[in-house]
């Protein structure tokens, strides 16, 4: 009887270890960024910055007017143009990481194809007390445009720092514009986004 109990104890221990192995978070999980959830139109606050998504547009083509030149950027998927207002909280920051997380879990980093686009998030020095209009541009397949999540963080990988996860609410049949025009003005803050 005693041997049987010991054997049972060993099996219980093995089972407990198996459950622990399968359920314990990995080192990556423990040190991953700390998510702050929000949605379009509301101010979402991280430790160092805050961001409000003001508008989301989809387009098949982007026309950029800058420094007297015009250039068109097409895509085999679609462009997502995210307008937002961002500010630092206590110290100057630059937000180097923006990504679109599709409903199926694929992650698309902000496009660097349109390097001259105005107001690009990663190129703005955000100052405390001075909210600033910023732009994020993504390029992905049309199938990814519904139920996407915008991920914004200070750095692409910063363990234990905040990462904003903003649900990008679009209507059940989001409008895809033929063309969106980005126009750069004379100063860094002077730019516009228009639909054609």
């Amino acid at each position, binding site marked *: 009887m005693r041997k049987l109990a010991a054997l049972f104890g060993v099996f219980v221990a093995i089972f407990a270890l198996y459950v622990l192995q399968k359920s314990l978070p990995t080192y990556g999980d423990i040190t991953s960024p700390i998510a702050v959830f929000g949605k379009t139109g509301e101010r979402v606050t991280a430790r160092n910055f805050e961001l409000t998504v003001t508008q989301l547009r989809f387009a098949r083509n982007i026309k950029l007017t800058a420094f007297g030149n015009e250039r068109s950027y097409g895509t085999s998927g679609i462009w997502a143009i995210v307008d937002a207002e961002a500010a630092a909280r*206590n*110290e*100057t920051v630059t937000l180097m990481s923006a990504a679109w997380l599709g409903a199926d879990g694929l992650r698309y980093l902000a496009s660097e194809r349109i390097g001259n686009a105005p107001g690009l998030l990663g190129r703005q*020095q955000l*100052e*405390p*007390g*001075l909210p600033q209009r910023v732009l994020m541009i993504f390029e992905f397949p049309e199938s990814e445009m519904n139920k996407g999540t915008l991920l914004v963080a200070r750095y692409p990988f910063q363990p234990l720092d905040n990462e904003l996860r903003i649900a990008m609410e679009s209507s059940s049949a989001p409008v895809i514009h033929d063309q969106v025009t980005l126009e750069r003005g004379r100063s860094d803050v002077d730019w516009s986004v228009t639909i054609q």
Partner: protein
Amino acid sequence: MSERRYFWGSLAALLVAVPAAIALRGYDSALAWRANQELYPLIAEPGKPVRYGGAEWRIEGLYQLVGQDKKSAYILAEFEAKIDDPAAFAAGACQIALTDRGEKRWSPQFLPPYEVRKARPSIDERTTCGGATIKPVKAGETVKMAEIFRAPSEITKFDLAISQATLRPSYLILR
């Protein structure tokens, strides 16, 4: 010694050994963290010099240029360092920020904005704090520096916080 005494003795040793291991492993990290913080200020009252990092630092002026939107302003800080130990002055990269004497800190602009250069053309004759520490300097020389910050126009009282990597956690406040 009985088994029971071994058990309690080992448990007591663990109570000492575990915190000691944590402290030993964390010591270097704690030192690295401390060396990156600005904890002990050396405060220079307006116009008065203070010695820090092989030089005597003095603020010459803080100017505010309110932007067209009336909400933001460029803050131009002009300051100088009279070098008496060039090696100590150039020992570590200069880190500079504008503070509101509270929690908020503004980093300098990477390039001087057009509006500021137009209002104060003499800014081109001055170097930045980071640029000054990599340029060869001689003892007795006075290095003129300027930095530009962008901050809300409603804030009018600022300090300039300067620190060198090799001298942190002590840092300089030019008031």
